[in-house]
């Protein structure tokens, strides 16, 4: 292609790349009348683009070519790739080995083609994967982990199943019909379980239904077809998603998958029907009806398959040998097999394989019920219909396949209606309870009253005792009271008292209601309180369950879903898992902007959350913009003296200080501290955070005495309120240690840093850079104490954890560079200037 023709094509290509395939066609047609050579060029270029989608052209990093160890590219979550197991349209499958020596060593790691996902699909991918990870059933291969690697590669980690496809397994052992049907029932129970979690498989085929050596059925790839569907933004599936390769297998596909209708639980009923057909008669329903792929698709849409009893007994001589073989594999003869299939099994298979979804079994459970009845020799429930004696080729043009989605839609509406009514009833009850209690206790909540009151504590304790003692016979009322008391304790910063109350409330909800919006609420509250207590894994588990339940009962865009997304984001943030945190924060912000508007305090909270996270990730400009917006909203909505305004102010001050405007940051931090002391009471542990913030800036401005006093005050507040081993305490300790080091008091800094490192080891992920900072500071302290060998080990450990980020002013960048300087200082003090050289700034 000449430079001239590229230049001519380039602006058109820009537009075309943003278009759907239909729009592209229209655009090119329009252009054709003007310039056919240009159109030919453009079509060639678009074709290159299409071919790129399946390739990895330039997607590998050039650094790898230089022999940089590939391990970091081969590590996904906790797993390292060992060996390629297979490749297909969706990507490749690898055998993965856990790297942390965990005993469940092996897993299957699926690397999905990023092209199937698209840039906007990543958040959705993570959310869907979270739902799938909760799908636990003995016959479903568990999704262990999912995510997107730093290089942008989406991956899934699945339980590794050694075994063989169900049809081969049955054939090799010459299982009879009863044994085959029993295995089939295991498959059906797994699918039914997934359906009760609103997950469909949509690609049931033998290679996804494995039987382990012990003879246990394991279903692979549950929900993954859905995971890979593009954004549902533009409604129905576009031609583009078809080009990208919809994940189904033609021989097992239901008609609605081929016409692009909606995939529903009825699709899996069809898939199970196909599988049953294969297990019974040794071939697919549409096998032998078609030559080309096109004919196959047509057969799925239009041709009624042979009845199973007919399929195993072909009148044609050349197929007799084959029939005999199939019967032998089922421990019988063709004639006996035909008789066994005729009647009930013919009817069951026919009903499962109906072209119209609404004519199939209404659920997988109903299909399984009939198979069980057959095995128990009871009459089946499906009625034989006028199943055509011979395949009727091209008998019925399939025009209304889109009507198929009605089944699932109706079911969803019914479910939502049922819970909606129940929710309203419950809400009325909860309102009564809370108004009663709120009256009694309103002054207890600092966010309502503006000031703390000392008498509240005893009131609350009395309330809690009363709930436990007097309300044993009224579980629902009791649950509401426990929840309310727990929440009030939690908001007062006493999460130690909140957790047992909320745990009781969750236990009650689980027992009396099962999965329900109330249980979700309880789990959400419990997760928040656990998070306060730094029990982060427990918090995450509770919140993830709450999220799944809320999404299920309230839909994806309910403000309450936003609440849980937000809390989950914070939990991940506290664990140092920034990617997951960002996904949840973004989800929360999007939900709230849409549902509540931008000028709402919850939306502002989400802005702050995301802003702080982006700051930590080094995107300071975006962070500051969000935090400013949050402050404005809080000032306008909550008022200038509200604790939320104080928090917003402190958050903004943090980025301002990072930017280097220490003077402005100092006055903002002072204001924030004053607000929090006034509104939360002087003993509230949140004050400690403000104090350490202010101290951090004061230290940088050389006001060491005031910084030291504030740090000590903060620690004195945080230790009793949060417990001596809370991560927030470790942050206070590191802050005070920095002041001591600036004052030249290494021996005072050392014990603080050692204790902080102990806390961090228990609560942060191993690679958290803040651990690197503490290592580095401790190394510095030991250098000054002239304990050089120990210092060297610590500083080297620190350099493993500290990285230079894109933002040169980011705390981590500064710490990373400071660590280098500390290494250089160490070697100079040690009398080894030659080892210092590599760490000196390059001149």
């Amino acid at each position: 292609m000449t430079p001239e023709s590229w230049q001519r094509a380039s602006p058109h290509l820009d537009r075309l790349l943003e278009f759907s395939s239909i729009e592209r066609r229209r655009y090119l047609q329009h252009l054709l009348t003007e310039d056919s050579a240009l159109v030919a060029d453009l079509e060639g270029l678009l074709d290159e683009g299409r071919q790129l989608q399946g390739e990895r052209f330039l997607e590998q990093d050039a650094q790898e070519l230089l022999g940089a160890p590939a391990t970091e590219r081969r590590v996904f979550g906790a797993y390292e790739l060992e060996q390629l197991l297979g490749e297909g349209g969706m990507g490749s499958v690898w055998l993965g080995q856990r790297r942390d020596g965990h005993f469940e060593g092996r897993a299957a790691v699926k690397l999905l083609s990023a092209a199937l996902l698209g840039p906007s699909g990543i958040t959705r991918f993570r959310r869907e994967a979270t739902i799938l990870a909760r799908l636990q059933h003995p016959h479903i291969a568990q999704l262990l982990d999912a995510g997107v690697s730093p290089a942008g590669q989406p991956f899934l980690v699945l339980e590794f199943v050694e075994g063989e496809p169900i049809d081969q397994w049955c054939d090799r052992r010459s299982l009879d019909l009863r044994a085959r049907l029993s295995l089939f029932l295991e498959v059906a129970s797994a699918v039914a379980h997934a359906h009760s979690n609103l997950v469909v498989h949509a690609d049931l085929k033998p290679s996804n239904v494995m039987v382990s050596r012990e003879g246990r059925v394991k279903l692979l790839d549950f929900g993954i077809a859905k995971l890979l569907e593009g954004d549902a933004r533009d409604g129905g599936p576009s031609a583009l998603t078809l080009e990208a390769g919809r994940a189904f297998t033609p021989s097992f596909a239901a008609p609605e998958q081929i016409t692009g209708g909606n995939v529903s639980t009825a699709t899996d009923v069809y898939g199970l029907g196909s599988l049953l057909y294969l297990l019974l008669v040794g071939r697919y329903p549409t096998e032998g009806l078609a030559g080309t792929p096109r004919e196959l698709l047509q057969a799925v849409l239009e041709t009624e398959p042979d009845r199973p009893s007919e399929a195993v007994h072909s009148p044609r001589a050349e197929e007799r040998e084959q029939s005999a073989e199939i019967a032998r594999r089922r421990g019988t003869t063709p004639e006996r097999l035909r008789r066994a299939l005729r009647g009930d099994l013919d009817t069951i298979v026919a009903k499962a394989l109906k072209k119209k979804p609404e004519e199939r079994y209404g659920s997988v459970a109903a299909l399984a019920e009939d198979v069980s009845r057959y095995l128990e020799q009871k009459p089946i429930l499906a009625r034989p219909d006028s199943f055509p004696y011979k395949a009727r080729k091209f008998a019925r043009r399939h025009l209304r396949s889109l009507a198929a989605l009605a089944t699932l839609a109706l079911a969803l509406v019914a479910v939502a209606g049922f819970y909606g009514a129940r929710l309203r009833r419950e809400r009325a009850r909860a309102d009564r309870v809370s108004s009663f209690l709120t009256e009694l206790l309103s002054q207890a909540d600092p966010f309502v009253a503006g000031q703390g009151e000392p008498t509240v504590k005893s009131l609350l304790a009395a309330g809690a005792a009363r709930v436990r003692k007097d309300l044993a016979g009224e579980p629902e009322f009791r649950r509401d009271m426990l929840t309310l008391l727990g929440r009030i304790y939690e908001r007062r910063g006493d999460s130690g008292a909140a957790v047992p109350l909320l745990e009781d409330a969750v236990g009650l909800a689980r027992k009396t209601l099962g999965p329900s919006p109330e249980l979700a609420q309880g789990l959400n509250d419990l997760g928040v309180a656990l998070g306060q207590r730094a029990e982060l894994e427990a918090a995450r588990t509770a919140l993830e369950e709450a999220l799944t339940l809320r999404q299920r009962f309230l839909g994806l865009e309910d403000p309450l879903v936003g609440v849980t997304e937000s809390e989950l984001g914070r939990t991940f943030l506290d664990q140092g898992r920034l990617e997951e945190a960002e996904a949840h924060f973004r989800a929360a912000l999007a939900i709230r902007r849409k549902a509540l508007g931008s000028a709402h305090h919850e939306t502002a909270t989400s802005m702050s959350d995301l802003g702080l996270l982006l700051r930590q990730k080094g995107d300071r400009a975006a962070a500051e913009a969000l935090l400013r917006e949050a402050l404005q909203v809080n000032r306008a909505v909550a008022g200038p003296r509200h604790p939320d305004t104080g928090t917003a102010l402190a958050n903004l001050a943090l980025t301002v200080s990072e930017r280097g405007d220490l003077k402005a940051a100092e006055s903002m931090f002072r204001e924030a501290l004053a607000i929090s002391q006034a509104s939360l009471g002087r003993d509230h542990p949140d004050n400690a955070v403000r104090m350490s913030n202010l101290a951090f800036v004061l230290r940088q401005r050389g006001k060491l005495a005031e910084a030291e006093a504030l740090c000590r005050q903060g620690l004195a507040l945080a230790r009793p309120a949060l417990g001596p081993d809370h991560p927030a305490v470790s942050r206070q300790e590191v802050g005070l240690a920095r002041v001591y080091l600036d004052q030249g008091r290494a021996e005072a800094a050392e014990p603080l840093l050692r204790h902080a490192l102990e806390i961090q080891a228990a609560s942060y992920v191993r690679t958290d850079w803040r651990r690197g900072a503490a290592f580095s500071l401790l190394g510095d302290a030991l250098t000054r104490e002239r304990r050089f060998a120990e210092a060297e080990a610590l500083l080297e450990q620190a350099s493993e954890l500290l990285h230079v980020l894109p933002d040169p002013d980011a705390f981590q960048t500064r710490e990373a560079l400071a660590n280098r300087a500390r290494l250089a200082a160490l070697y100079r003090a040690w009398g080894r200037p030659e080892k210092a050289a590599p760490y000196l700034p390059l001149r």
Partner: protein
Amino acid sequence: MEPYLSTPVHAAEAGAVQASEALFATLYRDLRGLARRELARVGPGAALGATSLLHEAYLNLAERESMAFPDRARFFGYAARVMRGLVIDGLRRRHAQKRGGGLEITSLDGKEVGAEALASQAEEMERLGRALDELAALEPELAQVVDLKFFCGFTFAEIASHRGVTERTVQRHWDKARIYLRRNLGAELPA
């Protein structure tokens, strides 16, 4: 101190070829120095971490001539071009050493890479480099995205934030650049 640094940057802005080469040479020297130091620190065979090298080079330069640099986006544009040169030179050197029996190289699948494979890799990369130069003459921002992403390992998000554009835009530039390169390199595609 290298006081001439500010001059080449501004002159390169103005499009003067020689000045641009001077800047190129300075950056090249800096980056190689940093890479060597990094290797000396962590030992051979370690990941070079192109992105952090570039950041550090930037910090070094900015420290030396803090007023001289127009903006970071432009810096990374130049530096990424330099990094491409480093990678291709590195491959070429590897090839030479391999022929001399000096060095063993491990490929992705853990198998040793033969001299032939290396030679063709180096050639492929050189071809890619030439095609990128041609593209840079037509649409510099497209070529730059390839330098930053493929040769330096930056993510779309990072590139977007350097340039102050959306990730979507970077993604589109990337797609477009790959289309151009695929078209012009034909069947001889690198990994």
